[in-house]
């Protein structure tokens, strides 16, 4: 039975959820506030639909490519017998370390003739392929090998057993990954701007910068937001499907790795090497090359230092704001999972569906009209970061608090603790490592954020990302290199955090090496545990 939700917590949570939704609502008011005329003008403009069409085409092309590369790569690192398997896992996940605008800068500095749709397609595909590899590999690892074994006893050969019994079960994870890629591409601002592809996010930004009347930017923002929300809804549906298919509660035994023929093995190594080298090797090499060129001409250290300290300051302020605002929502979702809590959580997660350029634009409207004193100040920028990253912080908070049994708090209460003290000294104490890890992820993401920072940063201040963007825009690649390098190092931390659990899991003992006996022991332990639970 659910415990009654404390009223004060509900009020705080509701306030946060409403405040977070204000910019989007205000964007809609701004778009439709001047009557139907301007809206109709934007909607009947062929350029609008061309930009929307290009956005969707780029998202589909990149998502399709990442599935075509990511699924075989995930299969190789989880199922095939490979040398240096952990290294391959880390290598194919590392492209996450390189923000798309940094990768674009790097490719452009090597090949200045790169431009347009296919250049953006190449760089975005390489940057986002880990979004397909990670969930697919995790799904392949969690598959019960008994399904393929049963299929074999029912007359299927190894390939047919994989295609008919295993692949359909992995498909929700593949679909979910592809949708995340599509969302990333739709929201992307850096790569499409650097390669000059007229997709919605770039057109919105140009329209915002070029025109005094920002109604058209608002209408375009609404279109982009709706497209992104559609993708998020599809992604949540595919996640629900994956959840429903889960039958067994016990951890599956791992089957022996498959030995590939020499030809297939060479192809496999080639694919993994290409993903890693093109996704992370080329950007690093290009950045180093440009850095060395720039170093010989002299690096503007004071400028770099100022950008680093601004980045760190914005990161910390953004992290504290996002985590603080996400705390009541995460607590409600974990401890008092009522319908009201679910609604508030969904409202506060609006940033998950909104591209940075849309959040930036909507907060520009809020800032200029409702709180002009705060426009282009750090507090309003911090609020934009909160809108964008509350979902990330909230997920970490909810997950961490949910792992702490409520009975511990109950015991603390029977020891004379007030509800708040029991929560603070028991639940928060135990949940703090998970919340801290989530906070660090938010910090690192804020430090790489580009479009909202470009729109809302205080005049005269630059972060590493905005400085890199302006220097790349004017073709100063060598001068931009130190900023790119620092951003890659910042991005490498969460990429390693994501890669290591998978790398560890793929190198666990397999059943062709005594694993069967291990499984017998595991089964016995499982039964004992079940006995204890009963």
């Amino acid at each position: 039975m659910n415990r009654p939700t404390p009223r004060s917590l509900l009020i705080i949570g509701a306030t946060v959820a409403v405040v977070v939704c204000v910019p989007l609502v205000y964007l809609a008011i701004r778009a439709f506030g001047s009557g139907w005329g301007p809206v109709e003008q934007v909607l009947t403009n062929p350029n609008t639909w061309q930009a929307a069409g290009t956005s969707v085409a780029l998202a589909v092309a990149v998502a399709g490519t990442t599935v075509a590369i990511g699924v075989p790569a995930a299969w190789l690192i989880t199922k095939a017998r490979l040398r240096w398997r952990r290294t391959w896992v880390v290598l194919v996940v590392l492209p996450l370390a390189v923000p798309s605008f940094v990768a674009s800068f790097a490719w452009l500095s090597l090949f200045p003739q790169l431009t347009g749709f296919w250049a953006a397609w190449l760089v975005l595909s390489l940057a986002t392929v880990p979004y397909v590899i990670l969930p697919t590999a995790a799904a392949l690892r969690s598959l019960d090998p008994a399904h393929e074994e049963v299929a074999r006893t029912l007359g299927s050969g190894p390939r047919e057993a994989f295609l008919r019994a295993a692949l359909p079960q992995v498909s929700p994870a593949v679909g979910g990954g592809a949708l995340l890629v599509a969302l990333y591409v739709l929201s992307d601002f850096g790569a499409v701007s650097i390669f000059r592809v007229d997709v919605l996010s770039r057109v919105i930004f140009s329209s915002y910068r070029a025109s005094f009347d920002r109604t058209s930017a608002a209408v375009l923002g609404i279109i982009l937001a709706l497209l992104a929300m559609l993708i998020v809804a599809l992604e949540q549906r595919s996640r629900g499907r994956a959840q429903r298919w889960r039958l067994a509660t016990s951890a599956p035994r791992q089957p022996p790795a498959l030995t590939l023929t020499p030809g297939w093995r060479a192809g496999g190594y080639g694919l993994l090497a290409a993903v890693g080298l093109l996704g992370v090797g080329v950007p690093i090499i290009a950045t180093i090359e440009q850095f060395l060129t720039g170093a010989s001409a002299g690096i503007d250290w004071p400028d770099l230092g100022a950008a680093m300290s601004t980045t760190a300051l914005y990161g910390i302020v953004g992290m504290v704001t996002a985590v603080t605002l996400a705390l009541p929502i995460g607590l409600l979702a974990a401890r008092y999972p009522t319908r009201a809590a679910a609604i508030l959580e969904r409202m506060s997660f609006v940033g998950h569906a909104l591209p940075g350029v849309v959040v930036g634009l909507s907060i520009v409207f809020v800032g200029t009209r409702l709180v002009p004193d705060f426009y282009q100040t750090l507090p309003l920028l911090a609020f934009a970061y909160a809108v964008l990253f509350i979902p990330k912080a909230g997920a970490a908070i909810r997950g961490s608090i949910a792992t702490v049994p409520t009975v511990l708090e109950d015991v603390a209460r029977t020891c004379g603790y007030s509800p708040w003290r029991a929560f603070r000294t028991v639940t928060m104490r135990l949940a703090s490592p998970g919340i801290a890890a989530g906070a660090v992820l938010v910090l690192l993401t804020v430090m790489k954020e580009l479009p909202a920072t470009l729109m809302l940063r205080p005049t005269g201040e630059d972060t590493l990302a905005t400085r890199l963007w302006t220097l790349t825009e004017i073709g100063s690649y060598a001068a931009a290199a130190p900023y790119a390098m620092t951003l890659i190092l910042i991005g490498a931390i969460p990429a390693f955090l994501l890669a290591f659990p998978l790398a560890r899991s793929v190198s666990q003992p397999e059943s062709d090496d005594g694993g069967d006996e291990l499984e017998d022991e595991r089964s016995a332990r499982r039964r004992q545990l079940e006995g204890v639970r009963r």
Partner: protein
Amino acid sequence: MTTGLDIAGLVVSYGKTPVLKGVDLQVPEGQIAAVLGSSGSGKTTLLRSIAGFIRPKSGHIEIDHRRLVGPGVWLAPERRDVGLVPQEGALFPHLDVAGNVGFGLPKRTRVQRAEAATRVEQLLEFVSLGGKGAVRPHELSGGMQQRVALARALAREPKVVLLDEPFSALDAELRRELRAAVRDLLSQAGTTAILVTHDEDEAVDFADAVHRIADGQILDQQLAQTNG
């Protein structure tokens, strides 16, 4: 021996660790045998060797005088004519009950599809799940899932059905009920079956013959003969 399952001198090792050390086991056609052993005794390895998921180092396995494993012979699992009922059923979660039961039946032509549908219906009736064909596995209870797994294993009329602790995930009462039901179903189908279990009561209740395994060797044949 006459027809049925015949295993002789089966040796299996994991790396340098011997797991089965020359297992001999005969199960006459139509009989249900239990292999009883504790964790690490080698019982699951024996079952997986019969199914074809493990290659033995030496020895032979025959079903109705057809050699599955032996010097120079090794048949892939799909060619062995065995059915498998794993722990917790391992139903395909992306298929409904009918899709699971009919998974191994040929469905290339319209006639084959019609025959498969009829066979699936018969099997579902047989395991008392008539009308449940369109239900998804997650909507079934644990006992029902195991019945579906048994129907799936029987669909291709295998020569031998292998049961890998199929009742272990169920509670005691359901375990007893399902044990009796599955035993009756197997007897009616006249299929040879091997159950591996660590539960002595289960082995004695379920099987016509119980073979105790320890440290990779069958200790005594025909320990109990209480059913039939």
